[in-house]
């Protein structure tokens, strides 16, 4: 071999290498510069994907951390029947294909059993079918006949995770799924009106679900990345990522046990009196925290769609009733606070008329005949005429001012919203009789919650508080990020007046209208209320709203409790649904249970029974 030939060969090789590089370079220029936009569009379409990660909705807890509402994942199971066809077509050996087919048929039967469906129905679902599409979309299978393979046939919705795990183990060809989160309420109907629910579209409709949605819903995240041919994410090609932020947990002030106690009592009321509605509210007087709030009728949160609209109303804040004699705390409290009377000051409650500002005014009727009554007797026996005279002593403007201060005619600012204000007309709109009728709770209406909070003001030293239903917010890691404390709205009466009024209210159960409903040693203070219902503009004799609103122990109140029964049906006696008949027994029964549950200690040494006297054995 000559040197010239070798030299030429090397030159040729070098030129070849350079030519190859140039070829690659030219191709790169085409790919990266000339056809760049076209290719990028194609790649983007084929490989790029944006995956949205849905935030998990926060849970709703009671004051002790018990779950009231949570989210549970559920699966919608579907089938791609053509996948099984493709799977079997891959196997060329006839015998092995038959064996695989048999295996799949056995698994399909197990699949049907797990889902609780008839095998025949599942077999029909697995039958490959075509579905019609518009001609411009029919480009998938190469035959433009307006039909494409139906690759998604729904089998069942709402399949739980354990069942799905067993389905996955079957390794059945063609099974696909879609995971969704569904709201579940472990306690079914407990505190239904407080918790509220999410509808089928996942939109919060009522209650805490609706009002605290901002805290609960969280923020969806998303990932921009690429996918492979099997549509699996190629995690290494993630280009942008916005992390998902799960919703916060909302802790309510509701105590599940107290809520259960009052709901149980509501069932008893419903069975005995078949009322139009009934409401029971329990709260902590010192903080305004609602410990339990329940209405009859109610509904099951997990089956809200079957509940009538009436059952979904939170009557405690959406319905107005005349407070009746429970409103007398305004007249008595105001007169005591203004120093116009003492508990011993007497009034003539026997006379049917009275001179007021130069006019003779007809006083309201009494349920019993009274003569001279002291202020403490007026409270205990719920004298309408006595309350009217106390209001007259103050005058319209002062009385109206106190009624406002007790929270009537104003929103309580309850955090669940949608509350109605109630009606408290200003003195300029009163007629000549209003000053004698309003003190007994007529010519005014209020929500059960307004009445409850007014009594709560007496229990906590005269301060009107905002009713609290939310205790705190916790992030998804369980850290407390916001605490809701008591909010004082107004100082209605002086603490000393409130304490005095509380003692007067104990007379109601000792010697007054609810005599016999006292709990020895626990100083139950309360006020009965019975009001005729106003139907078609007239007070009727056969429809009443009975209530008992009170607290205990009077000298150091720990629980405020309201029982309101609207249009209860009483079959015995005078057939009137007096507060002492329809509400006071329930108040008494609930109070007995709350004393045990909340470990409330008696304030004095009450006479004890035999067993208690043997307590020394402990």
């Amino acid at each position, binding site marked *: 071999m000559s*040197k010239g030939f*070798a*030299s030429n060969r*090397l*030159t040729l*090789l*070098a030129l070849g*290498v350079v030519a190859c590089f140039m070829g690659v370079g030219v191709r790169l220029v085409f790919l990266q510069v000339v056809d760049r936009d076209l290719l990028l569009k194609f790649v983007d379409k084929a490989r790029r994907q944006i995956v949205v990660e849905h935030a*998990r909705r926060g849970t709703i807890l009671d004051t002790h951390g*018990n*779950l009231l509402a*949570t*989210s*549970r*994942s559920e699966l919608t199971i579907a089938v791609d029947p053509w996948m099984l066809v493709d799977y079997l077509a891959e196997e060329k050996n006839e015998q092995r294909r038959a064996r695989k087919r048999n295996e799949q048929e056995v698994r399909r039967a197990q699949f049907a059993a797990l889902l609780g469906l008839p095998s025949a129905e599942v077999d029909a679902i697995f039958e490959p079918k075509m579905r019609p599409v518009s001609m411009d979309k029919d480009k998938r299978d190469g035959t433009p006949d307006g039909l494409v393979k139906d690759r998604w046939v729904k089998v069942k919705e709402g399949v*739980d*995770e*354990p069942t799905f795990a067993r389905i996955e183990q079957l390794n059945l060809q063609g099974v696909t799924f879609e995971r969704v989160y569904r709201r*579940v309420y*472990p*306690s*079914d109907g*407990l505190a239904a009106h407080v918790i509220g629910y999410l509808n089928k579209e996942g939109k919060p409709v009522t209650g805490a679900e609706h009002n605290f949605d901002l805290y609960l819903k969280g923020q969806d995240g998303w990932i921009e990345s690429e996918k492979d041919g099997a549509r699996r*994410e*190629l*995690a*290494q090609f*993630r280009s942008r990522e916005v992390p998902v932020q799960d919703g916060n947990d909302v802790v309510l002030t509701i105590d*599940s*046990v107290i809520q*259960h106690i009052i709901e149980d009592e509501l069932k008893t009321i419903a069975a005995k009196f078949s009322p139009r509605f009934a409401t029971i509210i329990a709260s902590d007087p010192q903080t305004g925290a609602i410990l339990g709030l329940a209405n009859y009728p109610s509904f099951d949160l997990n089956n809200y769609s079957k509940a009538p609209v009436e059952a979904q109303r939170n009557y405690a804040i959406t319905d107005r009733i005349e407070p009746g004699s429970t409103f007398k705390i305004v007249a008595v409290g105001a007169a005591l606070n203004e120093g116009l009377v003492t508990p011993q000051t007497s009034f003539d409650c026997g006379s049917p008329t009275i001179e007021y500002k130069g006019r003779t005014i007809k006083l309201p009727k009494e349920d019993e005949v009274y003569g001279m009554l002291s202020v403490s007797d007026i409270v205990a026996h719920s004298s309408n005429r006595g309350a009217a005279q106390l209001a007259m002593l103050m005058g319209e403007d002062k009385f109206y001012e106190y009624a406002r201060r007790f929270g009537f005619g104003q929103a309580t600012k309850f955090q669940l919203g949608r509350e109605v204000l109630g009606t408290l007309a200003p003195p300029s709109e009163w007629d000549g009789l209003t000053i004698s009728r309003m003190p007994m709770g007529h010519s005014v209406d209020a929500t059960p919650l307004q009445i409850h909070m007014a009594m709560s003001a007496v229990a906590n030293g005269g301060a009107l508080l905002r009713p609290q239903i939310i205790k705190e917010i916790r992030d998804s890691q369980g850290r407390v990020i916001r605490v809701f404390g008591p909010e004082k709205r107004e100082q209605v009466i002086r603490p000393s007046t409130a304490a005095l009024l509380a003692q007067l209210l104990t007379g109601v159960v000792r010697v007054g209208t609810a005599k016999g409903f006292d*709990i020895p*040693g626990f100083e139950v203070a309360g006020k009965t209320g019975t009001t005729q219902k106003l139907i078609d503009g007239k007070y009727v004799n056969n429809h009443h709203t009975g209530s008992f609103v009170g607290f205990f122990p009077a000298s150091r109140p720990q629980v405020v409790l309201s029982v309101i029964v609207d249009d209860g049906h009483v079959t015995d006696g005078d057939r009137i649904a007096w507060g002492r008949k329809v509400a006071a027994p329930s108040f008494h029964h609930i109070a*007995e*249970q709350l*004393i*045990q*549950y909340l470990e409330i*200690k*008696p304030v004095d040494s009450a006479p*004890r*029974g035999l*067993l*208690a006297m*043997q*307590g020394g*054995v*402990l």
Partner: protein
Amino acid sequence: MRPPPARAFVSQLIALTLLLLVFSGSLGLGAVWVRQEISGTANRSHALENRIADVERRLDEVNAEVAAALNPHSLLKQNLAMQLGLSSPNEIQVMRVDGSPELRLASKRNREVFNPVGSRAGAEGVNGAPYTFRIITASLR
């Protein structure tokens, strides 16, 4: 010094080109290896994320079931079904004591065990008085 002949230059050029190819090839292979590692790690991390999400889903499921089993209504139903007869005490059945009930119970038990009046009749001390002990468990103080 004489300049190198042309073919020596070509040889050097080829050698350098080959060297460059080997070097860039190594770089390329290194880059591929790194990409592969990144890909593997990303996929493992992705799998772990999925696993965590799966565990969290199962936890939610279990929590919901526990909450359903522990709500007062379910517990009362269990009480009835299992005929346990559990109920809240009535006020009349409650004896409230001042101080620690544990100390009180310990004291009572000690009296039963060591006071010979009832349980060990006949045992007497030096002066004929019954033995008495007052032992309160220190840990209960």
